[in-house]
């Protein structure tokens, strides 16, 4: 019944999807947190930069960002991302595009988390002599993160599915393989179902786990 799967490395393709997701998630979390820190910083230039970045990037379709990373950065400006061949270069450019795009959403989720932390927390931190970055790192962000685990789970799930856009620049992830298989095999519906199921298997546990963690780690006030 599943003989149409023969000869295709479905697991391998999904493994690439997982790699894209994990690397982009880590990158987006780091860069998004930095952006959120800039958005609440006392330096107007940083606030302005993060504000403009978020509002531009989140309003551009991901496909265009990923294509720009490939056609713009790589082909015109010659950014090879330190890669030796096109496959690795495409993968890294896709991660770059996904990080740049997803971080805008991570930033906004974290910023809304920062807004849930009462002013008094930061005031108390400053009153014992913590500087701005210590106040943010030790007091405000830990509480902000716990408040937005749910929204961050949404961003992560969206990111997992968004990795399929990498097929636009030829990265051999799940959607690329699905397209190939649909061209070569007759059972298009079954193929679609297999890949849809594959994504649900990836994202469902993430949502459930993070939902549970969000409840458990919530800061009691």
């Amino acid at each position, binding site marked *: 019944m599943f003989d149409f799967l023969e000869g295709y490395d479905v697991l391998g393709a999904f493994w690439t999807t997982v790699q894209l997701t994990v690397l982009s998630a880590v990158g987006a979390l780091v860069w998004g947190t930095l952006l959120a820190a800039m958005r609440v910083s*006392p330096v107007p230039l940083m606030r302005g930069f993060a504000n403009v970045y978020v509002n531009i990037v989140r309003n551009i379709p991901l496909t265009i960002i990923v294509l720009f990373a490939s056609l713009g950065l790589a082909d015109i400006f010659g950014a090879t991302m330190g890669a030796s061949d096109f496959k690795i270069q495409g993968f890294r450019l896709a991660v770059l595009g996904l990080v740049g795009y997803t971080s805008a959403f991570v930033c906004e989720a974290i910023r809304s988390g920062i807004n849930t932390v009462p002013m*008094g*927390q930061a005031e*108390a931190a*400053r*009153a*014992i*002599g913590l500087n701005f970055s210590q106040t943010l790192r030790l007091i405000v962000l830990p509480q902000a993160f716990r408040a937005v685990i749910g929204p961050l789970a949404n961003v992560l799930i969206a990111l997992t599915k968004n990795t399929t856009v990498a097929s636009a620049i030829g990265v051999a992830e799940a959607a690329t393989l699905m397209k190939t298989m649909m061209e070569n095999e007759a059972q298009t519906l079954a193929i679609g179902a297999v890949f849809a199921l594959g994504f649900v298997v990836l994202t469902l546990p993430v949502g459930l786990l993070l939902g549970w963690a969000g409840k458990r780690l919530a800061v*009691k006030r």
Partner: protein
Amino acid sequence: MTEVSVAKEDAVTADELVVLSGVNKHFGPLHVLQDIDLTIGRGEVVVVIGPSGSGKSTLCRTINRLEGVDSGSITIDGDPLPAEGRALARLRADVGMVFQSFNLFAHKTVLENVVLGQVKVRKADRKRAEEKARALLDRVGVGAQADKYPAQLSGGQQQRVAIARALAMDPKVMLFDEPTSALDPEMINEVLEVMQQLAQEGMTMVVVTHEMGFARSAANRVVFMADGRIVEQAEPEQFFSNPRSERARDFLSKILHH
């Protein structure tokens, strides 16, 4: 009672610790602090009272620059308050602050709340910081709660932890911004007792409060504020029995009846 007042007089010297001169501050069109001149001596306990909106909390918050000022100068131990940055952070560590709403770090245990500043600001050794934190928590009577989270404590307990957190920095002066206003009546005394004890030990304190009993028994001086100005300052006995200004008489007549 007599013992206390003798100790208080010993503690007060001519040594000026906090000096505000010509301080002005606006919130938009509201002139919330108007030409404030106030000197607080080392070891002195100054209670600031006045009707709501008189600027007394703002005054308290300008002393560690949680609120900036528009004009005038504030010095602490001879040093003018620095602008934002590292120097200001260092100065704030020397000025303990206790808030109306406690503001304990909600994601950290009681012990961690008292340890944090010592380790991160004073660069104290962690073990020694914990010992000191436990000693301070014992001193304010919440030693048994050290491993709980703030939300698990009563308001009175939380406020005593907040006092311990401020004391852990070995501050030169302690600011209390309406420390008992958010407490249930039966918890007010446990906090006031800790503050009384601090006053007796010679801590320099600026206390914004509505607790007239505390003002009478612990203060060296009462500062009465109204409409952004210091209207009157006097020793507590004199202030409560014979206020000079009409504004203070009016205020006292409204609160001392019951």
